[in-house]
């Protein structure tokens, strides 16, 4: 029997500012190349959110971020799907709104979805803009058949500082860049967070273009966890990763 997979890009009309729509496209292709019957749905914010196996939430501006959070809370589908085991990749503004609270344009706290135990506040220092290199923690999840996630690479662009609570775990330790900004004085310490099948990160790139192992982790989760994913020819991704890792910190 062919495995089936419904991938949903959440509200590209509100959250699509940083090329993060690419994450959905990458997941769909990596599934299709393995013979998995994957459908990719662009879910507009004026319709009920469809049920899916894997959701991608992208980055966006302050106003649309607040509207997206309110819509998703009122809609309820995403929380119900996650409770049933659906996987989520949430990036930047999307990462912030999957947490407990995040700041609006004026800095006031807005309720998030609470899918990740993280809380974001407005940073006091400079906006975090630039290349990020972060080493996954030993406790971080691992794609089936692999010993952990390889080093993460991406580009960040955010003002918020995110604290990871006891109900979630940081995804990685920052080697270069800012990430969550949860170090002393809003400096670098950890990057991203995860719990269950939900991953949040500040990394653009989009993140899955530069970290195909993370894409395969999400696909594995969405397929039920025990489906062996055959390896793909990722030489071009590896060349991009090698170049980005060697360049980070040189500018």
């Amino acid at each position, binding site marked *: 029997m062919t495995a089936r997979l419904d991938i949903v890009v959440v509200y*590209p*009309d*509100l959250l*699509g*500012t*940083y*090329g*993060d*729509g*690419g994450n959905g*496209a*990458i997941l769909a*292709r990596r599934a299709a190349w393995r013979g998995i019957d994957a459908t990719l749905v662009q879910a507009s914010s*004026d319709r009920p959110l469809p049920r899916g196996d894997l959701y991608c939430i992208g980055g966006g*501006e*302050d*106003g*649309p971020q607040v*509207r997206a959070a309110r819509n998703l809370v009122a809609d309820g589908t995403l929380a119900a799907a996650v409770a049933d085991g659906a996987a989520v990749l949430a990036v930047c503004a999307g990462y912030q709104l999957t947490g407990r609270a995040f700041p609006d344009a004026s800095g006031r706290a807005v309720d998030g979805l609470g899918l990740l135990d993280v809380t974001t506040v407005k940073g006091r220092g400079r*906006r975090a*803009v*630039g290349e990020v290199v972060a080493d996954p923690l030993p406790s971080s999840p691992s794609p089936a058949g692999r010993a952990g996630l390889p080093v993460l690479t991406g*580009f960040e*662009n955010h003002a918020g500082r995110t604290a990871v609570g006891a109900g979630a775990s940081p995804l990685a330790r920052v080697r270069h860049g800012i990430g969550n900004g949860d170090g002393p004085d809003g400096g670098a310490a950890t990057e991203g967070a995860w719990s269950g099948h939900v991953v949040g990160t500040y990394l*653009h*790139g*989009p993140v899955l*273009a*530069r970290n195909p192992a993370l894409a395969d982790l999400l696909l594995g989760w969405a397929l039920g966890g025990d489906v062996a994913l055959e390896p793909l020819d990722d030489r*071009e*991704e590896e*060349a*991009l990763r090698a*170049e980005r890792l060697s360049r980070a910190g040189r*500018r």
Partner: protein
Amino acid sequence: MTAAGLGWRSRLAVGAVRVANGASRRLGQGSGTVAGGRAGLAIDPSLLARLATGRRVAIVSGTNGKTTTTSLLVRALTPAGSPTTVATNTTGANMPAGHVAALVASPGASRAVLEVDEGYLARLVADTVPDVVVLLNLSRDQLDRVAEVRMVADAWREALAGRGPETVVVANADDPLVTYAARAATSVRWVGAGLVWGADAVGCPACGGRVRTDSGGPGWACDSCDLARPPTTAELADDGVRLDGGEVVAMRVALPGRFNRANALMAAVAAAASAPAGGIAAPTLTEALERIATVGEVAGRFGVVRRGGVDARLMLAKNPAGWTAILDLLDEEARSGRPSPPLVLAVNARTADGHDPSWLWDVPYERLAGRQVVATGDRCRDLAVRLRYAEVDHVTDTDPASALRRAGQGGGSVDVIANYTAFRDLREGR
């Protein structure tokens, strides 16, 4: 205004512009225009306003098409057979230092046409009191530097709200963000110039509602406030220009692509709306269209250069809207029977390009499937991964010169699409 009419501080500042320009030209550092303008503004911060006094100034801004439209507007304001007497920043130095340099370089010009970076429109409007402001379009560009396109629209709106009828705004009625900003002005000529990229305008800039385009017809409207496409004085039709929603007149444009027909129409309407300058009356729309019909190349865009024995047609695309417009052009040409030559795509992510090339994923490269593509530029590896997921066959070559040779192996000419610094380097043969 002549130098003699300026105060001593401004005369000193103008002198500094000239000295700095000469020095940086001798040192071989670019055209020197920006360095000189910066030196002048440091001595006299009001230099731009003083240099603009007594001149008619037209301003052109927008995310895409600024340089082309500026150049076409200069042509449209220049009567056939007469020498150009218009001050303009043709080098694309579109911030105040570049504007100062342009005005200093043409002390006798009673008319100026200035291309303005979107973020500097408010300052230019305040400093130069323009008779015409051309607003082309607004979409995402260089995300690590210009954070929110809606903030730009708000700044435009504020800048125009203070202007009386002496400033005519020529605005693209098909762009909701432009419409939102231009609505605040007293005098507006609405032009239906089309919109390549609608993704940034889905949220209503006025009320946060939703802008709908599916209501039938070519229009758009917000579903929760009164922001909607205004009736136009001129709009692109299949075979020309539709005037006041009725009669269609012919339009000939040598520059390729629908987006250049849009630039040409915006320039022609702006020329017709301008005030007389230096005894030269504004052309009629028909005269303006005739003057720009034969322009075939602007600042190297669409020009053919020979590099390493290969003839390459150079096309510039800086952001998703710009890339989409060029892909539209390639489709148009393929439909009209032009053979599709090998394609070189060159992408950098230097400071002038923006350091984050994530926008590659907003460009519908899937449309290149079936073409022969060579990826090059500083960020060719990002591009290669993007093309892999778009299922476009490609080879990757980090060196642009060698990429051109590869693409030209078959002996014919090649098409090149490059973003800002990659385009500049190819054009200058670096």
